[in-house]
């Protein structure tokens, strides 16, 4: 990264021209745009994969926890606490740099996907669980008194209410963790940041980084605005 820092010799021009030439260089932009676009789709793939596995695993853990089997629940709480306490980049490093020592090689993509899925799983379990426990006992009793089984009550009565309650915190947490896909650049995945950073090294010009930042805004700005909307839409009226 340092080599790029001294590589900005050029003819005497105005500061603005130099700035524009550095950060908004049309030629460099045209050259590296396809790479950034490829990176964009890689980021999207990675993000969708993390959301799918992370949320599904989190929900599954919360459901298992609702069965109330003591030793199993301690294990779940331990795993959840662990992945809430560990920085995602540390988990990625453990998987990517650590596993080869065990004779197992995960690609950078797989490491990031697995690591962030585990982190999202932990946060999602916690949120789903809080949602499930916040459904009043009377709802369980009413449903069970009509002959619904434990699982039917969970499925038709408790979960719909719990999920509604959990949507705002879950949306925000999912967005925050999904943004962690940029960490994949550390383990050599050519997602947006990885592609942009490589572009800077090759072209000795920061325009690919500008493109990368714009690509992230294109991807996540709507998501953040969506999260804002969800928060007002599902605000609890009472």
């Amino acid at each position, binding site marked *: 990264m340092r080599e790029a820092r001294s590589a900005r010799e050029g003819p005497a021009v105005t500061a603005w021209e130099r700035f524009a030439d550095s950060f908004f260089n049309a030629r460099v932009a045209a050259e590296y745009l396809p790479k950034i676009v490829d990176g964009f789709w890689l980021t999207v793939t990675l993000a969708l994969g993390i959301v799918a596995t992370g949320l599904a695993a989190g929900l599954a853990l919360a459901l298992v926890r609702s069965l109330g089997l003591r030793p199993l629940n301690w294990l779940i709480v331990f795993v959840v606490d662990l992945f809430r306490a560990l920085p995602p980049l540390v988990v990625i490093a453990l998987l990517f740099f650590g596993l080869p020592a065990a004779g197992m090689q995960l690609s950078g993509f797989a490491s990031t996907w697995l690591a962030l899925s585990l982190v999202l799983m932990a946060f999602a379990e916690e949120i789903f669980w809080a949602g499930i426990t916040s459904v009043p006992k009377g*709802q369980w009793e*009413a449903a069970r*008194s*009509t002959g619904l089984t434990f699982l039917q009550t969970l499925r038709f009565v408790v979960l719909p209410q719990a999920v509604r309650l959990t949507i705002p915190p879950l949306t925000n947490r999912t967005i925050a963790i999904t943004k962690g896909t940029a960490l994949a650049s550390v383990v050599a995945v050519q997602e947006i940041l990885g592609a942009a950073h490589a572009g800077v090294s090759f072209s000795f010009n920061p325009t690919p980084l500008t493109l990368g930042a714009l690509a992230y805004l294109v991807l996540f700005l709507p998501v953040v605005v969506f999260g804002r909307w969800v928060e007002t839409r599902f605000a609890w009226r009472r």
Partner: protein
Amino acid sequence: MTRPIIEARGVHKHFGALHVLKGVDLVVAERELVFVIGPSGSGKSTLLRCLNRLEEPSAGSIVVDGIDLLDRRTDINAARRRIGMVFQGFNLYPHMTALGNVTLALRKVLGLPRAEAEARGRAALERVHLADRADHYPGQLSGGQQQRVAIARAIALEPRVMLFDEPTSALDPELVGGVLAVMRELREDGMTMVVVSHEMGFARAAADRVLFMADGMVVEEGTPGEIFGAPRHERTRTFISQIERT
């Protein structure tokens, strides 16, 4: 007396160190309406909740409609659909319409197809005079209407017995009448009912028998005339005079 439909014998319930039911007997005949009264903490709600095993009795036997509820081999979910229950706090499902509340168990427990479940659900809502509110959510209904939907939810399953746990005590006074009217109609249709409540007027007019409970035991029982007119025990007298004053 026809054959008993509820036969609970020697029911005990402990909550940790707390001994809430101390050997209660309750026998209810078909088409009978039994009222259970008593001060708070007397165990009357716990007794009611043992009758469909929402609470697990610590000891005793409970047979409802010929089914031994405490037998491990009993399918409790199948038994529960014959025992309707109405709660103090209504406990309607807030994310479902009135009709959705009534039809959920019809579809998932009885396994009826949607159309048939809805027809039966509407008929049940008709019986509580809320056919026009079928598509309303609980939040859009008054407390009295919510409680009537809860009654419809229970009777739609065509239970053999109905349990009422203080069905009117969470209601504003002006809404109580509608719920009691529905209960009276149920009674006239021959439903067997066990009611925990302080609605003395209703008890006088509709009950066959009144049980007075205190400290986890049945202190005395008799016809409404006997219990309200000439209570034999001091505790019953004190309790009834306190209730009537309020």
